[in-house]
């Protein structure tokens, strides 16, 4: 009864808010906590710095929170403070990215970034095959911010798959690989210059939707936009499913995005915490990949996708 009156404090540290995906995740945590009257939240953001995050988590531990939701900047760098939390008997739940110490976390709800990169390569291969009959063409890779797990893992997934595809299909070429840092303006500038240098680009893979938006705008600026389906169309695929990404897909400017759903993902973590605090620890899996979907203009408004959730639209609507 006493516990019911005194809500349990959950500490949350998100790696950064510099990206719509993490804003979605934060909103998922906040709404998830609101849905549980027994929980309250201390909400922090580490601004992309692992040291700041370690400090924030330590401050949360010092306040004796009942549980921690961590979205680590780096799986290894978070380990020392996670161990501190373990020592203080505070359960740790990791979101999107784990802590590299296995059982030190109760649950690790992961986005499979390597798979996202791989599926991006496959999508491009599929479109090129539809265009040329065989998998061939010139592809640009605009990767995300170097040194971030999302950027590096997506790149690894894409690069590995692309290497496989191109060794099987000699006509498939990577004409440029540049880091656009998850920054739309960088994506814009690099794409502009690549378009000036190459007039035969078939597809652009992007580390996230912001990069993709930059690419889309650059294609428009260079007067190189032709609608999807036209053989001269430049295929653009992003990752995340931000509101602007969805909008660009609806308008036919962008071909596809690979979307996870940070809202439902975060809500699930909060559910696990509730479950954990009520003593039902057995039902919580140690590790779980949160599913993702490929979104194109064709499936964007189908019931299955609605069922999965278009977080970009939902977040903006809130």
């Amino acid at each position, binding site marked *: 009864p006493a516990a019911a009156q005194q809500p349990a404090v959950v500490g949350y540290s998100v790696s950064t808010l510099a990206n719509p995906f993490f804003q979605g995740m934060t909103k998922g945590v906040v709404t998830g906590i609101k849905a549980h009257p027994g929980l309250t939240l201390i909400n922090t953001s580490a601004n992309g710095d692992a040291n700041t995050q370690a400090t924030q988590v330590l401050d949360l531990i010092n306040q004796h929170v009942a549980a921690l939701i961590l979205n680590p900047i780096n799986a290894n760098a978070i380990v020392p403070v996670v161990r501190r939390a373990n020592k203080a008997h505070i359960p740790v739940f990791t979101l999107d990215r784990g802590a590299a110490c296995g059982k030190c976390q109760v649950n690790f709800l992961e986005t499979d970034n390597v798979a996202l990169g791989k599926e991006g390569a496959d999508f491009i291969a599929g479109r090129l095959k539809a265009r040329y009959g065989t998998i061939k063409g010139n592809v640009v890779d605009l990767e995300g911010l170097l040194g971030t797990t999302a950027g590096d893992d997506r790149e690894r997934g894409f690069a590995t798959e692309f290497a496989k595809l191109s060794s099987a299909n000699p006509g498939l070429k990577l004409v440029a690989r540049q880091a656009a840092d998850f920054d739309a303006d960088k994506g814009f500038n690099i794409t502009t210059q690549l378009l*000036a240098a190459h007039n035969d680009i078939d597809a652009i893979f992007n580390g996230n939707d912001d990069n993709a938006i930059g690419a889309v705008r650059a294609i428009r600026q260079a007067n190189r936009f032709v609608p999807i389906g036209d053989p001269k169309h430049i295929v653009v695929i992003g990752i995340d499913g931000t509101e602007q990404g969805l*909008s660009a897909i609806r308008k036919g400017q962008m071909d596809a995005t690979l979307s996870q759903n940070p809202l439902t993902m975060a809500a699930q973590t909060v559910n696990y915490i509730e479950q954990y605090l009520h003593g039902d620890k057995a039902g919580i899996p140690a590790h779980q990949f949160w599913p993702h979907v490929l979104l194109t203009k064709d499936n964007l408004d189908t019931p299955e996708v609605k069922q999965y959730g278009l977080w970009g639209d939902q977040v903006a609507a809130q």
Partner: protein
Amino acid sequence: MSASESGDTGSGGRFTLARLKLGGGLGRALNELTIVVGFVAISLYLAVTTPAFLSTANILSILLASSLIGIVAVGETFVIVTSGIDLSVGSVVAFTGVMTGLAIHAHFPVPLAVLTGIGIGAFCGAFNAFAITVLNMSPFIVTLAVLAMARGLAFIVTNGNTIFDFPDSFDNIGGGNLGPLPIAALIAAVVFLAAWVLLSRTVLGAEIYAVGGNREAARLAGIPVTRTLSVVYIISGALAGLGGVVLAGRLDSAQPIAAVGLELNAIAAVVIGGASLFGGKGSVLGTLLGVLIIGLINNGLTLKNVQPFWVQFIQGAVIFGAVLVDSLNQKRRGRV
């Protein structure tokens, strides 16, 4: 400022430029700007090794990519000439960008929305100016605080969301073309030209140099120091506002996280162009060269498809090299 610094303080191009008569004048002005050697070296290297470099499309793409940092660097030039610094420009670009976006979504007519963005930028600049001149605070701290506050406000007013989907008439400001020319580059060109006139050919420009060269002497000579400094920070803020508009238009969207770190690039461009953080020195032409050098480097890295891990290293090394040429050149000419 140390005496030796003052010893090698070139006249910063101003007075030379003031007498520019396209014949010997420009030659002399360029001669003052020894960074031109670095600029030419990089251009030549790229022209020779990269066939695509000299295409019209590529050169326009460099100009387009340089337009945002160029617009902001012009404002920073004014500030640095007065021996100040404006660290807030990157955040102000983001803040004015989202405010302009919100104005558009609130159905402001496009010109009014643009003015809103520029006006909010000018207001941020006025805040900097007030704190620096009246409250007597250090420009570094004031603009650092505004860096944080404007960025925070950008997040607060948007709730972290991207504002997007603007009419083409707005987007064209940043991403449209006039004939073959990118409008953003044209805007930057106008800004550079106006700034060049202002700084090298007007009374206000001379006053800005004087305030930067010796504030006390300027005051005693009857120059309105507070007003001059205020104008300078307001210009910088307003140009950051214009930058926010251009960026929002280019991306058809405004993000609170946009343009992080832009201030450092803008300051770098100004310093590469020969300005000194100790004031009294610097020129619009120098800044233009600095901006273009940064643009050239990035373009070269993209064209040569340099692997991302190497990009930063090479960026640093090339900037180092370009400025090294400059400083050895100055040393050789006994200007040290």
